[in-house]
């Protein structure tokens, strides 16, 4: 599959279709929220710690801009359960270190993405 995308260094790896479907089917369901307005002073660790109060956090992806060295101010939090997701969505406001986070249900599924700086809890 890597070779089919010869010459294309996109982040998303291209799968041959059948395998892709198989992989998707095999992937576990994640319950994700999309968080924006993350203050620059906190990083993955702090964000994850904050969201842990709502349920077990399966993953926390806070992309950093390699050009600037700052993160981009938004992240995805994946809970292991629907309950975690709901707890997080019901809470308002979300305040981390005095800053108000914007938390919303992730509109597009985010599984399968890889980033250079990722942190996943298994």
């Amino acid at each position, binding site marked *: *599959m*890597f*070779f*089919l*995308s*010869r*010459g*294309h*260094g*996109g*982040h*998303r*790896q*291209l*799968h*041959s*279709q*059948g*395998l892709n479907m*198989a*992989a998707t089917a*095999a992937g576990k369901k994640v319950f994700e929220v*999309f968080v924006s307005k993350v203050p*620059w*002073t*906190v*990083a993955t*660790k*702090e964000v994850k710690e904050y969201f842990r109060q709502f349920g077990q956090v399966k993953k926390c992806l806070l*992309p*950093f801009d*390699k*050009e*600037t*060295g*700052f*993160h*981009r101010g*938004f992240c995805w939090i994946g809970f292991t359960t629907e309950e975690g997701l709901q707890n997080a969505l019901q809470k308002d*406001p979300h*305040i981390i*270190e*005095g*800053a*108000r986070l914007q938390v919303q249900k992730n*509109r*597009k599924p985010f599984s399968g*993405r*890889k*980033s*250079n*700086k*990722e*942190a*996943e809890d*298994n």
Partner: protein
Amino acid sequence: CRLNMAALLRSARLLKCSPAVLLQVFGNSRHVSAAGRLYSEAVGTTRAGLCVQTVPGRLNVNSCRQYGVVPEQSGLVKDEPSVAVRSKQAQQFDWALAKLDSSVRRTGRVTKTLLLRIFHDICRTGYPSGNQALLLLRSCGSLLPEVPLAERVELSQQIWDKLQELGTTYDVSHYNALLKTYLQNEFRFSPTDFLAKMESANVQPNRVTYQRLIAAYCEVGDIEGASTILGFMKSKDLPITEAVFNSLVTGHARAGDMDSAEGILSVMKSAGIEPGPDTYLSLLNVYAEKGDIAKIKQTLETVENADILLMDRDLMQVVFSLTKASHQQHVPEIVERMRHERGYVPDAMNLCLSLITHGHEETAFSVLKSFTGLLVESQTSDSPDLGNFFLRHCANMDKPVENIVGFCKDLKDSGLHSSPLQFTLQCALEAKKTGMAVELMRSMKEEGLPLRPHYFCPLFTHYQKDKNIPGTLQALRAMQELGVASDFDTFSIYILPSFPSVDSARTSLKEAGIDVDGNILIAAELRTEASRGNLAGLFSLMSSPALPNIDLSAFRASLISGFRGIFVVLVLQKLPLCIYMTINVFIESRKCQIGSSLLFAENVAYFLYNLIDSLNETEVHSKEEQIREYFGLLKNMNISISLNIFRGIRNILESYQVPELVKCSIHELSCGLEGKLSFLEKTLAELKAEGKPASSTLKKVITVLCSEERLERALELKTQYETDMTPAAYATLINLCCRHDNAEEALKLKMELARKDSEATLDAQKYVALVRVLSKHGKLEEAIDMLKEMKEKDVQLRESTIGLLTLTMNTAAMKGDANTIRRLQETIFTLGLAKPSSNLCSPLISCYLESENYAGAFDATVEVQKQYNQMPKIHDLICGLVENGDAELLQKVMEFLSQERGEMMMLYDLYFAFLQTGRYKEARKIIETPGLRARPTRVQWFAEKCIAAQQMEPLENMVDMTVKLFECDRDDMYHYLLRLCKETNDWQKAEATWMKMQEENLAPRERTLRLLADILKNNDKEVPFEVPEVKEPIQLSAMAERLCNHFASYRAATDLFLIYLDTGRTEEAKFLLQRCAAVNEQKDTMFTYMLRAAQQPGQAAKIKALSELIPDFTEKENIFSHLVKCYGLDKDFSSAKALYERMQVEGVKADELTLKRLAQLYKEAGATVPFEEPPESFRFYADKLNKQRSESMEPADN
């Protein structure tokens, strides 16, 4: 007949637009761009380029304010080019200019970055207009409070010289603007030299020039010089205005003669000129320079008594003068008198910024504190952050950290800012000021604030860019000193890449006395080696007993992406040793549970395929042994290769004539399709014999048979094992019958299924396939029953299935069977299976057009419009009538159109028909109808149609004759032309287009230039201009979003999305989609993109990424056909095969051209084509498709 046509034309030309339309057309005498309209409030009726001066005197702290007060009506540039020319020029900068303008309006200032960006944009096109030059020059003075004076002067000089070099012609307004910046920037120059410069450029100075020169003399107290100029003015009989006297007040005072300065006021009175606010302001400023607070107070009283109003911003100038002359102790007394008028806050902010720039941050802070009360109201967030602008500017200006920390403490203690130190740190980091950042962090630590490893990332990023090892070490040392533990991410991403090797990093760190956790270093090293693709290094690290127990999942991604690099290296070097290494690493990674085993097998399979593919025949022969050994190894590892990949490998090997290896590959890697079938059939028989349930095996066999298009065998099996037939098996079989155009059998199966299970439901695609085959074979009632059943069973139709319905009716149209179409249409719409659409209604019209029954077609058009409010195929109808010269019916159609859609739309319809049929003279008359204005969507429709059908002549004619069309976007027009040139790879035509653009004096948008360059380059022709680089989209992103969210204008966001996609920045694309969901719906743009992408090899990934990003793309056929085209170009059989299989699974119908392309790929790969290859040539199907496409495109109603 000819006569009749002329009469029609006359009547069309006389069809006047309603007065309201005319009013709209002529009342708006300027070409206001789309962006301009968005900013209509700000832009008004004048152009953005002229707007800066409508903010008169906004804190021109270094000059007298009268210069800013230019009456609106005199604000127009003298040599204002014609409206048409102006619209062409600079159209592409409107956005940026509007931004500049809005910045001035909101904040009274411009940032240097913004100014430079616009300047560079303008320079890049090579056609800076006088207007733009003026705008830029005017922005180089006090509109830049954050920029030190010397730098501003340098900037204005740079802009002046550069634009002149680029051919901008300067007139007196430009010289005046330059003079103004000299004054605002306290630049000392020789007025006589300046005049000489103007003279040599043959530009006559005017009154404003002389006034400004007098001001310049007065600034330095040169009364003699000022008098000389005054003499000039008198000799030329120019009026001496208040402005001159105001300057003289300053002049005398600066010359140390306060008495004369004060005396000017009585001179003015005797000359019949009353001293105005500016006169008193001059006086106040000179007292301020002397620190004479008593006189200031006295003057302020006089002013008040004279009923003269001084504005807050006047007083701010006094504050500035006091401070500059080191009399800041009097500032509070002046600040107290401020009345906090509208616009006070931005003015006060600018005063603060200016003071900081001039080194008076303490005074600036006291000013800031005086108006924080006003800012509080604007705070909406939960945590206050007042004074950000102040702190940022202090950081940018390198103010001493202890001062900054003091300000921060004050802001925090007074509850104005919740995290001032963190914010300032952010600014220092952004500005890459390591020293300041470290000092700030030290203060933060003292305050008990947490310090985190990622605070150092911006610094490391900075150093990493130029591999600055000392800088990196310095930051690391600071980190250590501050007690911040560096983590794994920081090390592997930001630190190690600066060093040539991990070893040298280790040594340097040690020498620099920096302690690093050994495990972190090893883990980071692993990641670095993986992403560098250093297989040997990675392998030795991983097999070392010293490998600590580290969390491998943390760098799984880079390990996997690193493998990609390894593969490439391997494939390039073809080293048998590496094959072993790969396997070993795979085994290792498996042990570490890196990646699922599925992914693992898949990787190996593709690796193998690509390895084999990369070898030439000789190499395969010479490496036969190793390859065989590798196959054996894979088998021992229980790695199975999927069928399609296996076939690919087998085909390559077969073509190289290595029968032994082929045999070996079959033996080791796959059992083959036939084997699979016979195995399944055998299993089926066994199950039956044992009396066990066999339905799932039967379904499998039938599926395989169907995918191989073996209808007869499938039917045989069905008969043989009828009791084991499941609804799913029936569905597959019915679909196969439909594909084989076997209506009888399909219906029989469907009825059989209904008898067995009345609840059984087919999917929408299969139902519609049935409808199609039934109606095609005269079983209309049965077909209608199917539609009814769909409704009963609540089967939802997708766009693609609806398309299939259109096709079904089109089949009837070709046969002239209007009855069938009407019945189907009626049923579909009455049942609500689909909403009436242009496409769905078009077959009925086509049916009549096909037999050239225009009267029938017109009646049908009226019928469809009345019943379903759709007007399909109107273009074809009009074209037919024009060609036939049926003026009478044409007149009727025009009246109908005019009544239904308005005159303007009718005229466009007629225009396009004339263009299409080559009647250019008539077309020109229509488009020159007075009052007609450009309708971008209509024009685009016709252009796209021409491009799709590769019709150059009508398109070229349209572009030519719309030169004077009101509000016609010329760049768009030429872009269409070039797109078609690109399609046909016609570089001569492209070059001719370029000439025409120059004749028209058009400054093309960058995309147009790039397209042109692309065509020329593809044909090895020289590109006669500088090709604009792709703009950094991040500059753009925020604005695109704003346009999207606030103005429902999706073009910018969609373009940006496609740029991301095109440059492989899928994450950004995804993120953009998340924020601007409407981009999802810009299907036309996406299809255009795909169409273009599919022209070149190596683009499949982009299209695929697009389809994955927008999974609900309904027009699947379209995506798939583009993908097949790409695979064809890439000669990528296995992907094409996989795609074909997927199309089968999803029931997506391939058009003949796509099938043709697929067949070609199968044949090239030596595989059996699993479907009947369309018999005609590629060209034939391409033309057919083009024809269909242009037919299905109907005028958009706007």
